């Protein structure tokens, strides 16, 4: 299942919260749009795992956290895999589009292994992706499905960018 909707102006919101403005790829906290201050921000519990996987695949993130800052993670003891919100900026989509495939491919490969011990109906991931459009607005894509389906997202992200 894929749903697309408008998303808040990431640059403006990051500045309001006194965070770094992401230049290329970043993980956004789950309450990024609703948080009133930096102290309220929380990441999904899977955020740090995704960062390790990206580091191992030489995928460089430009985090919203400033040097030495750490955003807590929200843990729920559920079996379903809820990924963090991933931002792809317009700069990345136009100048380094293959990085979208790599960043999501790494997650898809991880999930393929992760889901091996799960019954079929539970092999489902939830993930939000925010893409900056060429006009500078932002679109959020909500994905719910299996690991394989993540590999179809780069094409959709690029078209969201170009349509915007």
């Amino acid at each position: 299942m894929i749903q697309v909707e408008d998303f808040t102006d990431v640059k403006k919101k990051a500045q309001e919260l006194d965070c770094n403005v992401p230049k290329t790829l970043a993980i956004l906290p789950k309450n990024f749009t609703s948080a009133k201050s930096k102290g309220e921000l929380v990441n999904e519990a899977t955020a740090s795992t995704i960062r390790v996987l990206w580091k191992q695949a030489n995928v460089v993130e430009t985090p919203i956290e400033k040097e030495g800052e750490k955003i807590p993670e929200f843990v729920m003891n559920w079996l379903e895999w809820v990924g963090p919100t991933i931002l792809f900026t317009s700069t990345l989509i136009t100048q380094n589009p293959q990085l979208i495939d790599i960043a999501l491919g790494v997650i898809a490969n991880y999930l393929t292994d992760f889901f091996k011990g799960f019954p079929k109906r539970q092999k489902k991931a939830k993930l939000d992706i925010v893409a900056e459009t060429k006009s500078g607005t932002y679109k959020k894509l909500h994905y719910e499905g299996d690991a394989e389906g993540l590999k179809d997202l780069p094409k959709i992200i690029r078209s969201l960018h170009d349509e915007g």
Partner: protein
Amino acid sequence: MKGKLSTFLKVFNNIVEKNLKFLIFTRGIEFQKQAIVELESLLKKTSKLKRKMIKDKDEEASNILLSLENLVSVYINELKMLVFLKEDDMNKAWVSLVEAQHSLTTAFQANDIVLNYNGENYLEKLELIEKAFFPHQTFSSIEAKVESSNCSICGHEYGECAHVVGRPYMGQICYRIFTKMDFEGLSILVENPADKRCRITEFSDDNGYMRDVLTWRIADHSKKK
């Protein structure tokens, strides 16, 4: 596959094959209890060889043996579930089923050898048992804000090291040890909890008695009121 492990696998397969025939409800409880004893002995042997492989720094063999350890735990817990069902101890039967499911997930995480033992179908089998033998249940789950957590493999701050949750490393599955967290709440009506032992065990009936969700019996503490 290397010598020691290959030799062990022959013994392992023989013992497993001998005892799998008792993983059927209608088999005599005395045979099922004996099968548990034999499989617990096999589990000890598997763990012993795993420790040797860890000492020899043979990561592949260690992870294969971790998978086999958990596979034996699946069989043991499934047998225990059958025994508890027959002994009318439904709460213990439920816990045994959940532990069998959890062990199977770990067996998959550890190594693909579990596929040689019909692992994929086994997952579905345990799901079917859950649906056929137990009522639909309500689960709960904690919610917490984690400020800091350590890696179970190396002890460093999770995310700062190269280990990844759910992956096997030298006979151990990586998990996070939460070292600083704020409890945020408890959610109920969770459809897919990570721990199915966290469940609502009693409900109030029309007469105000508390009844056991699994057995429908009035709870002892409720009778005394």
